[in-house]
């Protein structure tokens, strides 16, 4: 008899929850951390956010990046479970 590989066994509900939590934390970090960076820049002294880069304030470029990372977090977040039909 061939022993069953534990790695191929169906994940338990607890394993699924653990993986979902990891995905959740990763996605939330991807939303929050860039936002924190933008907030720091906007509050930075000497009008750092208004320094021009390509004619536009650097705050706008960084905000655009944070916007894009927030959208990137959506597919990286928790996945809906596959339910039996």
């Amino acid at each position, binding site marked *: 008899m061939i022993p069953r590989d534990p790695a191929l066994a169906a994940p338990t509900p607890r394993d699924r929850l653990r993986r979902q939590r990891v995905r959740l934390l990763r996605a939330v970090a991807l939303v929050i951390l860039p*936002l924190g960076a933008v907030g720091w820049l906007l*509050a930075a002294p000497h009008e750092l956010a208004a320094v021009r880069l390509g004619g536009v304030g650097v705050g706008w470029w960084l*905000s655009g990046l944070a916007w894009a990372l927030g959208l990137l977090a*959506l597919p990286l977040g928790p996945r809906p479970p596959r339910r039996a039909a």
Partner: protein
Amino acid sequence: MLGRALGFAAVWLCPAVLLGLAPLLLTDGTRGLWPPLVLAAGACLVAVVLAVPWAALPPGSTLRELAACRGPAPGAAGLSLAIAATASALLFLWAQLAAVRDLARGLGWPAPLSVALAVLLPALVVMADRRRRAVTAIGGALALIGLLVPLAAVLVATDPVWPRVWAAAASRTRIVFDGEGAWVRAGQPIRGTGRDVVLRVREEQRVTLLGRGRVRIETPDGAAWSREVSAPVEVTLGSGDQLVVPDGFPLRFQAGRSIPGAPRSGPDWAEPGLGPGGWRALAGLAVTLLIGGLGLTAAHGALADGAAAAGAARLGATLASLGLAAAVLWSLYAAWLTPEVYLAGVAGSEVYELPGRVAALGAAGAPLRDLALLGLAGGGLAAAVATLAGLPPGTPGLRPVLLIAAGLLAGLVPVAPWPVLLLAFGLSASTSAPAAVLACWRERLSPLGCAVGATIGLVAFTGLALVHIAGLAGSPEAAWLGWLAAWPALVGAPLNVAAAWLLSSGPRPSDRAPLPPGLAELHG
């Protein structure tokens, strides 16, 4: 799924949000980006944190059903969460109807009639419950089309490269009346948000009073001149003078003179300084909008759509982000193309009249402006219906009562939509949001802990908000208490989480033990 996604997006593209954001970006060309950015991040957070567990609940489920899924709650838990959901819904509806009122005033429509119509429409939709999903989808689609199509036309007709527009707006040496504009040639009625419009003049200029009514001029040394005007008369206003005219009074200005209420120059718009509140205001706003979105009754109502909710919420958050980015561009192009929007203090509605003022659009300008206004109305209807769907089921009489109460508040209390919207987000952050997140993700969860947390959050929020409104806490810029009272979610949300966490403590769950039945159901 697209219809549900549009309904979800409409919560973040409602008129209170869109009219509230416009003045912020027109005032500050750099930090005005912060509120729409945080709102877009908040929509993404709701989709990431709540949508998947919520999709496991039966269609039509609200926060009460989510909490009940995690265990039988004592009566107090249900009560405090129900009060929080109802109050959040009332504040959110009030903000929408206040936006309708301001929009009607800005367009010269009868405000009471517009608010009454805005109360009636969602009430009819909620009564015809089967059509709810279709109405939120159509309203959300209108909101998005109303934002994107007229904006695309303006971009094509003027300059589609927004960085070039930002650079041009931020480089103007002075912001003055254009010699070819309607304000200089024929004159126009000036519309504000109250009965009187106050114009603060920065440099000497001639103003022609074209209407009939009582006009007052106040000088910086305290002297005042008041007269009943019945025929066109030209007055010369000095630097620092204030002109007070009735709302809708027609005026003509002098070409080449600075626009009252506008920043002095492009650099003044792009770099106005950190402003009152500094980093504290940025932090308070971020906590309020990010956490508040997770507890907003309207967001829960938009999620309450069953199995496809997770995918729909992701798409909805993407559409909401797209719409909020479009709202930023609306304000940017309005600041560049029609600096006269600053005249009577920006209410927000002027920004969405932009296509009608762009000469390059010709005859297409007016219908495109109407499409933008229709989009605002559609977004408001969809957001109101989603809010009512997020209320606890089994209380059909509550919905019309809430709508009427919100209509009365919008009609009788002269408060702008944005502060009321912030109250709705702040209350949700302090009460419902921690319960929603913990119920979705924490294994050790006591219904009593949630009840106590929500009650403490509710009391802390209400107390601090009242202290702030009464002006007892001092200025948010000068005192810590003033700051916390201005942003009560900074206190309410952590207290709520701490109470719920501590009262839900227990031995660490074993890796071998099965998940609690409710949590297993949410993540099955």
